[in-house]
């Protein structure tokens, strides 16, 4: 993702963006972190919709040691012609629910618990279930996140663990 925006400097990015909540900035065709640590171009969804979707993904499967970039990767596939109407409608419903509870928008709620309350209110919706179900593979099957959980993936190429600690536990 960093590669796609390597032509955008941090200063350029921030100067052409508007803040969305505290975590994101959005431009005419991209979403970025407010630190410009990563950015993602969007072709079909509104950039603010994608930013909200990324926040929603984190709120469904919150891991404080996993950066937004990985959540962005997990939901990037929804930026498509086929998905856009459903996603725009779903995020609009999410924002409407936030407004109904007195917040400016879903990402502008402050506490995670307020967003989780909003999500609980729509967890049986097709949109929520689609996003949640997609994240199970979209997030946890990213090889880049495995080391963040200590998971080592395949070991065949290194000869397995027969000589590399399959029985190295020392506290039991």
């Amino acid at each position: 993702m960093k590669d796609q925006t390597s032509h955008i400097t941090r200063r350029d990015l921030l100067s052409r963006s508007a803040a969305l909540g505290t975590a994101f900035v959005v431009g005419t065709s991209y979403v970025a972190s407010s630190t410009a640590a990563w950015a993602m171009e969007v072709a079909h969804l509104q950039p603010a919709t994608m930013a909200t979707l990324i926040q929603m993904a984190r709120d469904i499967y919150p891991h404080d040691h996993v950066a937004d970039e990985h959540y962005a990767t997990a939901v990037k596939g929804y930026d498509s012609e086929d998905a856009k109407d459903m996603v725009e409608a779903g995020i609009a419903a999410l924002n409407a629910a936030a407004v109904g509870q007195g917040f400016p928008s879903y990402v502008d709620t402050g506490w995670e618990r307020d967003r989780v309350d909003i999500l609980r209110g729509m967890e049986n919706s097709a949109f929520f279930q689609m996003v949640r179900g997609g994240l199970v593979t979209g997030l946890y099957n990213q090889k880049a996140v495995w080391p963040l959980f200590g998971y080592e993936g395949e070991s065949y190429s290194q000869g397995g663990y027969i000589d590399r600690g399959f029985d190295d536990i020392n506290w039991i």
Partner: protein
Amino acid sequence: MAAPFELSDDSVVVIIGTGAGGGVLANELAQKGVSVVALEAGGRYLPQDYINDEWESFGQLAWLDARTTSGDWRVANDFSGLPAWIVKAVGGTTTHWAGASLRFQDHEWKAKTNYGNVQGANLLDWPIDPREMDDYYTKAEDKLGVTRTGGRAGLPGSNNYKVFEAGAKALGYKEVHTGRMAINSAENDGRMACQQTGFCFQGCKWGAKWSSAYTDIPAGEETGNLEVRERAHVLRIEHDDSGKATGVVYADADGNEQRQSARIVCVAGNSIESPRLLLNSASNLFPDGLANSSGQVGRNYMRHMTGSVYATFDKPVKMWRGTTMAGIIQDEARHDPSRGFVGGYELETLALGLPFMAAFLDPGGWGREFTTALDSYENMAGMWIVGEDMPQETNRITLNYDVTDQYGLPAPNVHFDDHPNDIAMRNHAYKQGMAVYEAVGATRVFPTPPYPSTHNLGTNRMSENPRDGVVNKWGQTHDVANLFVSDGSQFTTGAAENPTLTIVALAIRQADHIAAEMNAGNI
């Protein structure tokens, strides 16, 4: 290599499926000089092809044809289109199995006699004396190279096992060890020893775990008597006016229909596809499906009482390192109704990688209760529960005419309701499993619901009386003399043990019977 047999060759034994039942039967018959055509719906994948990545491997090996579910089991809700996690490939689910190879206990062969009348259960005794099986179990253990049998050493204990063993001993359990596994603890039969690589479920890349794909199948092919046709999906079994099976119609790799003539047909397509094939073979002579005069085809579907217990600790375990199933507690496998249920269960260590843990720990779960568990993935230990479930007539495979497969045939629907005995046993097992981990300092425990079924059993069951089941003590259908069932669907009851060793032992025994009957000119 086997010379191909002609489609019109009506002297061959046609075996449908090449897993623990069909693959072993094919080799055993070929070794006796019998001509065999084995039809396998999947492709051929060997150790060099296996992928040590959970989802990618699932896409390569899993049986993903259209299926539907119903009933009160949680799988119908969590994985409605995936009732079973089994394999479509040469070697069948022996590519995927963990390798646990346990003999039935004597009392389990006679469940009706020993458990009595359990309300709502359709219990029956196997028409086999346990002593008849002793030699066949020994042959099966030698074929599979089962550890802790025949003088073979056990596997070393992994991290996941060490936690499990310490907890078991703290609770006072006595029968705790690294299992009787069809995984080489030393080089055996030209296959190397286990390298503790993990990914046993994805196919063993070392070939250290027994699978018919690279043992019995090539051994049978070397005799010149066995031809395996890959990507040959059998659509129906045909018969003549006298009710004798004459051949099978299958879709070949290009989707074209072919017909293979046969002297004998053996069905070994797993307990969902085998009854489905018999039902899809209905004719004027057999309007309710082939070999179904009892009405029992598809009924008494069993899947073992299962569940898992995972636990987190304050220190790393790294359970994914080493064999997927690394040890067993057998103390609860006994029949002891004072626990509030009949039959028993085994506790066996199990590890999932992060991707599958996310999918299976609490399907549908989200939020911090879920994610904080995964945050401790590195500190997690796990076990699987496998126990005897009750056969029920209403738990069954039926044809779902609303959903068709890629060949236009009605898909199988898998209906399952837990029996009260299953629920009582699962609750007991959850309690004991959680106690094992709490005894060694678990910080949190997770009684995890059943996965899609890998132990699919009982849908063409064996019975003394033709009224009560589909096949006799040899797996021969009561209605059609030259039609056999050779997989786990012939199980009368499920017992507490992982079924593969028993399927293999029954296949070796069935091969003796079929060869003898052919020589005698009886079939």
